[in-house]
């Protein structure tokens, strides 16, 4: 089932389907086909923290909302 990165279950392995067009996202490994785990959602509209290739990346919630993912 397709969902967005912000509605994904924590600590479960997921796969990225589509992302907004952003160079910064791409270079940090947030690209189509990449596996990730959602680690934390920060409160007060703060970012989500995902782990991709053993690296933690913080992504603003507004952007994470536009990232379609699927469970592996």
């Amino acid at each position: 089932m397709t969902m967005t990165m912000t509605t994904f279950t924590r600590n479960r392995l997921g796969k990225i389907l589509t992302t907004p067009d952003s160079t910064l996202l791409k270079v940090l490994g947030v690209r189509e086909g990449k596996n990730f785990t959602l680690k934390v959602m920060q409160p007060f509209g703060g970012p989500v923290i995902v782990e991709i290739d053993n690296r933690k990346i913080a992504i603003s919630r507004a952007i994470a909302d536009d990232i379609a993912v699927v469970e592996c």
Partner: protein
Amino acid sequence: MSCHEISKKIDPDAKYKILLMGNPNVGKSVVFSKYTGIEAITANYPGTTVSYSVGNIFHDNTKAALIDVPGTYSLEVTSEAEEIAREMLDSGADSIIAVLDATNLERNLNLALEILEYNIPTVFLLNMVDVAERKGITVDVKELRNLLGAPVIPGIAVLGRGLNRLIENTYRSIDQKPQYPKLTQAEKWEKAKEIAKSVQKKEDISENRTKNFWEKLDDLTVSPWPGLPIAIGIMVSAMGLIVGGGKAIRSVLLLPLFNGYYVPFMEGLVSRFVEPGLLYNILVGELGFLIKGIEWPIALVLPYVFFFYIVLSFLEDSGFMPRLGILVDGLMQKIGLQGGSIIPIFLGYGCAVPAILGTRAATSEKERKIISTIVPLAVPCVSQLGALIVLLGDYSFTLVLAVLVISFLVMIIAGKILDKVIPGKVNPIIIEVPNLLQPNLQALLRKVRMRLKHFILEAELPMILAIGFAALMFETGALIRFGEIISPLVVNWLGLPQEASIVLILGIVRRELAVLPLMDMGLGIQQLMVGASVAMFYMPCVAVFGVLAKEFSFRFALKIAFLTTSVALLIGGIVNQVFNLFALLGVA
């Protein structure tokens, strides 16, 4: 006019020009320092080097200019720092040293492929092979060399390992004329992925190994619980260390030395050659610059600066700063910023110059402008903070806290207004969270020593000149006349004694000078608070004005000077009137 001026000129004797490039936070500046002996500021998060620096390197009796280029994830420009990197490449070079992070090969390889397309001879340093091994990652260097078609040297830059071979290979590569195929961006990602896959062996060691203290902390500090309490704990202890440690060194060591030995010695020395009178007073009198010029920066402010630098360097090297950014992102959005902005703002508590330069890593002009306005306005630099602690802390520490609370309020209000006034939009947070690392003690002490040296060199000369000028005005009576002119402002609106007008002049030179002269005026609690508030928001010092003009425009710098001065006088007056009101109510 920078706090950390490093040469930007290429030595005309240098035969070659070598660029040092790579992703952010892969250790380029470490390599640069090892080769050139120039100490560049390094830290454990992306974006420490936002401007390039040039140093000389010798090999085979030939001099080459080595240029430390700001780190970039790719050559597609998203920030000012990346634009600088792109320009450096476009202007050409004899060779490139590209640093790759062995723990994160795929992403690094994408930039590697982009660099190779320029057809400049390139040699790769596969850095941090030790960290990679600890994570169970091994890289087949020979295979990587074949696939990239360029030399790859494995090494550990912080320990200097691999650096001799690296420079040998770099010099040897210079006359080659490589031809690499041009690929589309998508092809490059695909190729990077393939290369990473075929040269990297990952062994899953996470299960059969217990995590050490820093690795456990790594996970804990990114979650709001217990990350937020930990962050608050760290900030409170940092403040305690700076205030307590600074005061201890000042009162136990420096002041006794200063008053017991230095002052009598100087007075004795000067009285041998100079008759009592104007000159004598300017040298060693009440505002004598041989006395105050040493007492203020060295005996009073330096101890706080020392402890601040320890805290700052620790937070930088551990990788804690970006974590703080993540935790406060939600709150920062409310004032038009994003969590990552916390790093330049925090640097501003050291000095506004590197803070403003640091905004080059920001991805929008609006964010740069908001930070570059807030920092000179409401973030006290370390010398000023030290001076405020000296002025108020001896009375009561609550006063220091009160002034800091006022500064936070102003920061929030200013952020809100600037967010509305400055057109454009701030890009939401996307940052890499570096691994939390135990800071290396030697590297940390070296950094503290280097910053202290800068502080003393940069503080002393303007300080002595400014105090000399003040002494002259004081002794000749010019100060009294100036005080009379602006008396309505200083005496009526701010409720300060007329002689306090001196801080409005001296504060232009250095920010602690907007505070320290108030010390010997016998002020009461109300006047202390007013004086401290004015100083807190008063106009940027000359160095900061210079960097604002250079980074933005002279107009922008003038606007900031006008804004800060108005806010300073406004808030100072409000504090004064509030105290008056309370006094009135108390009487009634």
